[in-house]
């Protein structure tokens, strides 16, 4: 199995205010959002990063996408360091998260062309790809409508398509089905499986257990910035449902009965 993503003691802290320090009853001036995270993802798999709110999922993915820099450790995507080879990493990844917005003023058609230019794509390749993706997601009927006038679901589909204009080998999806109805969510999850079938590697963050059970080959469970479990879905759900396994692990690591 070819390693395509490798995290080595990845760590990220954020400064916290004096008042918050008092509440936390600590003299620590920082909050550790991601705490020495290490794991590996292999080519062609869907890796699920499962964790509750505030676990550090988004922060981890933002580091992988080179938006923010880690305070410690490193991560490699297709062998390129996210710290020292940002340019190479950016070429090879697609990143979808709610934080990345598209200009409301433009149409899906314009935005697709704009981003494909930034990724230095050939015009013929771009047009073929645009036709294919727009048709698949039903964007073709809205290709010349300003984003501002699209529904939330359609906007999310456009964001998804734009995040993979350049046909990246490694795809990072942060809560890809958040805020979508079951129909649209199904379109998205079907597409993820299709990408997997094409041999792409996907890392997916979510707090939805069913999504992990449905899609993922391997799962990392993350709580408070730390990895508390890492295994194939099969192994993790061998004795118990994913949900119950999660609660058991949570009890054990956090020492509090839920």
């Amino acid at each position, binding site marked *: 199995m070819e390693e395509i993503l490798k995290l080595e003691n990845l760590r990220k802290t954020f400064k916290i205010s004096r008042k918050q320090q008092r509440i936390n009853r600590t003299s620590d001036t920082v909050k550790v959002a991601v705490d020495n995270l290490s794991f590996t993802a292999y080519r062609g798999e869907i890796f699920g990063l499962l964790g509750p709110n505030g676990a550090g999922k988004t922060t981890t993915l933002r580091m992988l996408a080179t*938006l923010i820099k880690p305070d410690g450790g490193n991560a490699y995507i297709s062998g390129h360091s996210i710290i020292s080879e940002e*340019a190479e990493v950016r070429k090879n990844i697609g990143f979808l998260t709610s934080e*990345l917005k598209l200009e409301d003023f433009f149409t899906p058609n314009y935005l697709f062309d704009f981003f494909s230019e*930034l990724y230095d794509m050939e015009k013929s390749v771009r047009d073929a790809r645009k036709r294919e993706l727009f048709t698949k997601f039903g964007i073709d009927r809205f290709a010349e409508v300003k984003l501002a006038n699209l529904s939330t679901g359609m906007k999310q589909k456009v964001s998804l398509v734009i995040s993979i204009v350049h046909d990246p080998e490694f795809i990072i999806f942060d809560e890809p089905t958040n805020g979508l109805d079951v129909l649209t969510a199904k379109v998205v999850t079907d597409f993820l499986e299709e990408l997997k079938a094409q041999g792409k590697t996907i890392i997916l963050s979510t707090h939805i257990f069913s999504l992990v059970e449905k899609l993922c080959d391997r799962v990392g469970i993350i709580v408070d910035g730390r990895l508390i479990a890492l295994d194939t879905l099969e192994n993790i759900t061998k004795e118990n449902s994913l949900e119950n396994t999660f609660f058991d692990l949570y009890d054990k690591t956090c020492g509090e009965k839920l």
Partner: protein
Amino acid sequence: MRNVWTIIKKEFSRFFKDKRMVFTVILPGLMIFLVYSLMGTVMENVGKTDEDYKFTAYVTEMPENLAAAFGNGFELKEYSDAEAAKADVEAGNLDLAIFFPENFGQTLSGDVKIFYNSSKDNSNNGFITVSGLLNSLINPPFTINAADGVKFDLAGEKEWTGKMLATFMPMLMFALLASGCVAVAPEAIAGEKERGTMATMLITPIKRWQLALGKILSLACFALLSGLSSFIGVILSLPKLMGGAIDGEVATFYSAGDYFMVLGLIISVVLVIISAFSIMSTFAKSVKEAGTLISPIMIIVILLGVFAMFGSSTSTWLYVIPLMGSGLAMSAIMTFTITPLAFVLAIASNFVLAALLITAISFMFKSEKIMFNR
């Protein structure tokens, strides 16, 4: 009443707990203090005649009892006749041509004729000095330049108009360009940051300097367009504004080369202003904050224009100061006194500063603290 109090408390904590907001309130005052102090220091050297400068003058019928008073500050020149002296005043080679009435030393009355050239600083200052000197030494009944129908100010129409344009063109250029820039800079960077569309571009392979340069160049064009439209408005209203003192003929005073220099100056100035504003816009968390952060810089820019109103400088090193050099160069172009070196210095200093600022913006684009501060 309690609710009002609750709102006031919230507003106050929003304001005073945000260090940046407090900073933006203090900043304009601080800037004005710095700029005025700077202006005060530098202004002493500009638009004024040097302390030990000797006014050149042609004098007829100099009364002996006044000769001593004229002794130090003046260098008297000989001319074959009055007309030759006046011609030299007009050409700017001689500061003053002074004609005392006969027996002025005894009578202390009559009309003293002083010919000068208001388009030349030294001649103009010389006229003021001599008038002041006479008025302080002797009590009227004498008069200065009372004769009807004589043109004592020998400045040509061209020079005079140039001098007048020189007083307000730099200021006008800075004000119009800055207002053009302020209209576009906050939205283009702080706006994109605020709306989260900047981050979407930052994860693509585009280099930070490419993003910065692309933004600055297009913003500069918008600012130029907006500046141009206001400029045309000003030009069209100028004849009315000046009560017919300036008319269409003015345009013919300047050569194509002059126009090209003005254009070059404007382009380089707009690049500096838009880059400086863009730094603030990058630093700001929101469009609104960008507006607040830009205003002190706007004040500086306009003050530099005011500064250039006080005349073109004789010392070339002042042209090396970005923006200020352009104001002075603009003045100098208007008065037909620009030298190639001064022009090149003025324009080059702008391009260098703009390049530095754009580099700074590229680095700011790389900083997660600046790009993702909320």
